[in-house]
């Protein structure tokens, strides 16, 4: 199969994720959309790895997964902390550090 199909799917997933990050206000959904963007990149890596026949892209994808796991831990931790303090779960409300 041609690699371009995978790339189109990857670009679509990335756009959906980016769109979600920009328009949604719930931190949980923003985190989900970020995952979507990361995994779209993973898809592109794997597609190229298969098409070129070497392992570099697969290793790269593994590293992205590790980073994504860490990011989710921090992000969810923040969300839980916000919830515990009864702060509104709305990123537009959390803007105390504006200039």
């Amino acid at each position, binding site marked *: 199969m041609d690699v371009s199909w995978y790339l189109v799917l990857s670009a679509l997933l990335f756009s959906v994720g980016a769109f979600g990050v920009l328009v949604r206000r719930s931190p949980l959904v923003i985190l989900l959309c970020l995952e979507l963007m990361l995994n779209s990149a993973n898809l592109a890596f794997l597609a190229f790895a298969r098409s070129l026949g070497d392992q570099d892209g697969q290793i790269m994808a593994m590293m992205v997964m590790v980073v994504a796991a860490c990011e989710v831990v921090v992000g969810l931790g923040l969300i839980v902390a916000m919830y515990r303090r009864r702060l509104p779960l709305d990123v537009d409300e959390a*803007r105390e550090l504006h200039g």
Partner: protein
Amino acid sequence: MSGTTYGWLVLAFPLAGSITIGLTFKLVSARTAGWIGVGSIALAFLAAIGALVELLSLPAEERELTSVLYDYGGAAGIPFDLGILVDPLSVYMALVVSGVSMMIHVYSVGYMGGDRGYHRFFAYLNFFVFSMLLLVLAGNFVLLIVGWAFVGYASYALVSFWYRRETATKAGMKAFVINVIGDIGLVFAAILLIKELGATEYLAVFERAPETFTTNEWTIVAICLLLLVGAFAKSAQIPLHTWLPDAMEGPTPVSALIHAATMVTAGVYLIARAHPLFGLAPTAADISAFVGLVTLFLAATVAMVVTDLKRIIAYSTMSQVGYMVVGVSIGAFTGGLFHLMTHAFFKALLFMGAGSVIAAMANNQNIDDMGGFRKSMPFTFVLMTIGALALAGFTGTAGFFSKDEILAYAADRGGIYWSFAIGGYIAAFFTAFYAFRIIFRVFYGEKCEEARELEGGELAHGEPVNPQDGEAEDYDVGFPGEEHHIAERSWPMRAGMAVLGIGALFAGYIQVPGVDAVLEHFFEPVFESSPLFEIVPSTLDSWIGLAVGSVVSITGIALAYYLYIVAPGATARILERFRGLHRMLFNKYWFDELQNALVYRPVIALGRFANNVVERYLVQGIVVVARGTATGLGDIVKAAQSGFIRSYAMFVLAGVVGLALYFLIAAS
């Protein structure tokens, strides 16, 4: 022990005394502190005698001992060390300083009895003596400057001793500021000497100076003039003299010790010490002698009209120091230093007597209010008369021989130096007049209220006020104490005055022309290198000078007797006749006003200009512009920091898309 060991002991005792009194003020009683002070100075005096004996046991050409206690470390081959020079000049000065100081300390034990700051007074006084001895024993110019600055500080601390009196603190500041001008002159002189000669020790400097400089070369003249700035500020010579009359705000023993006997003669000592330099710069020496002449003359005229008892004596001090400056500048080294010693005796004595009178007047110092103390204060009367006789140069007293030694030398050197002899004799006439103006106005004439009460056994006890501006005071620390002490009722005061009285009467006999020349032989090792030292007036000339001096002083005393005893109204008529002259003298030739107009006001105006224009428009303008720029830029950047995460994400995404587009366009 060697001579230098004694020299170090001379320095060690007063310093130890000062520290002991300063640290134990909670432990020992006031009187004990006073006697510790006296004891430390007495030990210093004994050590000075020890140094003298050691010095005299050496052959004349070896009487130059140096000793270094500690080396600060040299730089560029120039040594800087804590070293002293023990030679006839420094031992002579140490003897005069410690001897007179000892008697004044004894006097102070009685005189300051009622003061709350008794310990502090003696700690300062001992520190002063230490500084003064350091000044005279220093073996190099650096240590000289250290001692020079120390005595300046001690003088400041003691003039402002009654620190809650505003007039006293201001007088202290004035004395300090003018003395610092002198210090600067001295420092510059030392810098030039180091630069030109590469040495700071006296002996090395004096050895190298003739090899380096030709006579009257501008560098050596500049060095000598800078030394003179220091000497004039310390010795209250015109135009740096205005601090001395104001320094009379200090307690009377301070006036006796610092502002009559010792510190103000430091300039004379410096000129005598640096005589090899002045020998190479005759122009500077002549300028110095001329300034001395002007000072001795003007100060004597002012002393005839001022009415504050201590200020009369202060102007007299300026005048007498003027004689000494003339002496050491024209080459009459023996005469100048001889007069330094006799003056220390009789002027300290006069101040002590004045202190006693002022105590009897409950701190009033105005001689217009005094009169008739002869019966009620017989001891003070006799001793002050002795002091006045010596000051007037009355035949046979100490001042008689020492003053004429200078003037006879001036006449003998001839030429332009005749003017110094003539001016000196005219001023001597004034001196005799004002000396006995004090005696006749204070002790004769109509009895004032205080004198009448004292005859009845009642010591005057006025309200505590500042005698200068009449402001109300109390008796606590920082102001004079409640009790007053007069010599008649205090044996330490009598003891101090009696010893100095003997000195004022008989000290002159160590150097009588044609009979003996103790001082001249003693000083020979120090000054023999100077060609001027060889000019010695013949015995006949000296005795002619002494005869003229006798006539002048007796005429002056007689005039004072006529004006104040025989025809008491005469002074008022003279005053009426010469009103303008009197005003000029009474306002001290407007020197204070002149300094105000020439220095003080321009400096203040400059400061005001700097504040109003430079500070307000230039400095603050720069600040305003800089601040405006920074905040303006900050506002622009601030707008981006909205705090909305989604807008940040938008920026990131836009940036990525922008980059991607750029690379796409660049690649195609």
